[in-house]
């Protein structure tokens, strides 16, 4: 029997507390002179984008570590981080679009960073889909870690290609104001605390998500060990010669 999976409660408390602090700071910080109150969207958008990249980097590290050590612990880290990363990528994209609509007048522009992030989103969506196709922990771990490595190594190339594509030949289609210029120390604090708070949330979510992977593996183990009725069991051999 494997040891019981430890269930921790502190991550929930930590998530609630750090979000409360981040939220309060982003509300009391002053409005930007150019962007007005819209700058507040940056205090959630920037941390989400930062976590999107960080989470996928952790997936890469976990995948490499699994391929080298064959220890399933690393695969669990890679898997948990990929799911949380996909969530934060989706969030960063949505928040970016919500910010762009009132600022630039459109939901989407073919900006290099936007396009690249969107492609990255699909790469890891594929990673998650791949993990769903098999239950066997070992096969799943080695297959998805190869994809984790391939994705992470291809991503810089995707990034270069998209950046060059936007910068070489095509003139920008919109005149865009730059991101927020930090004028007030409170604004910088709100941004930094936002990044720290979201990172803490990421760590707490990781703890819970890895816990869930352990529980799922445990559940699968138990399910496979239970003896199930087999078709034909009710049929008994005819008693020959019992006359």
């Amino acid at each position, binding site marked *: 029997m494997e040891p019981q999976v430890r269930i921790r409660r502190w991550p929930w408390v930590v998530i609630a507390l750090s979000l409360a602090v981040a939220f309060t700071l982003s509300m009391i910080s002053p409005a930007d002179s150019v962007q007005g109150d819209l700058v507040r969207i940056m205090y959630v958008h920037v941390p989400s984008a930062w976590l999107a990249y960080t989470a996928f980097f952790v997936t890469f590290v976990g995948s490499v570590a699994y391929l080298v050590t064959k220890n399933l612990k690393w695969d669990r880290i890679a898997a948990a981080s990929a799911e949380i990363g996909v969530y934060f990528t989706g969030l960063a994209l949505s928040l970016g679009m919500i910010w762009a609509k009132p600022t630039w007048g459109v939901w989407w522009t073919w900006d290099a960073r936007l396009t690249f992030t969107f492609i*990255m989103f699909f790469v890891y969506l*594929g990673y998650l889909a*791949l993990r769903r196709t098999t239950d066997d922990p070992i096969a799943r771990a*080695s297959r998805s870690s*190869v*994809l984790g490595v391939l994705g992470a190594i291809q991503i810089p190339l995707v990034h270069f290609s*998209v950046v060059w594509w936007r910068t*070489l030949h095509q003139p920008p289609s919109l005149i865009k104001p730059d991101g927020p210029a930090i004028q007030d120390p409170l604004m910088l604090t709100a941004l930094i605390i936002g990044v720290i708070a979201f990172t803490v949330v990421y760590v707490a979510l990781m703890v819970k998500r890895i816990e869930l992977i352990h529980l799922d593996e445990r559940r699968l183990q138990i399910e496979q060990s239970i003896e199930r009725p087999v078709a034909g069991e009710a049929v008994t051999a005819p008693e020959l010669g019992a006359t």
Partner: protein
Amino acid sequence: MITGFWHQVRAVVDRDLLRERRQGDMLWITIPFGAIALLLIPLAIGTDAVLLREIGPGMYWVIVMLFGVLVAVSRASRETLPQQDASALLGLDPAAGFVGRTVSSAIFLLIFEAVVGIVAIGLYDISIIGIGWLALTLLLVAAGLALLGTLTAAIVNSSSAGTALVPLLVAPLSVPLLLGATQTYDGLQGGYGILSWVLLMVAVVLVVAIIGVLTARPLQET
């Protein structure tokens, strides 16, 4: 018993080409389907000759990209577990298997590119400048797509739902190839430097080739 890395590669390529000669699903299904796709686009967006000349090259590369995925899908559905076990028992080096499958996919893709390319030139009146560079681009795209497809097929197989997953995995990772190919074409037309795009495609081919060869054994073991 087959010995020697390149002999094994050769054997795998021969097997794939033989299967294609017998079944012909690349030649008789995928290529006509690609040509039909080129025919459908003007029906949907209009037949203005200037517009078609402008979008033709881009459409051609998108179709090469999307149909390149089909080669990988059929690859993934063919490489079944019993077949892999048989290859392993015969002593086939997994890396040689990977290289061989890639080479045969690349050959199919080059044929696809050539035939569909001729259709595209005819239908869209595409102009050709710098034929040497274009040939190199076709070769790099075929190699890159074949590598990505073969590696992805190896990653997903042994799982029944895996085959359906191949397009989702290959498409985003092939973005550098798509951009490299379209920008090289534009660069040749407009007389810009294209070296950085060619090098980018070379980098993709090298990176995926290295990962594919290095991970061939761990992937086969599970």
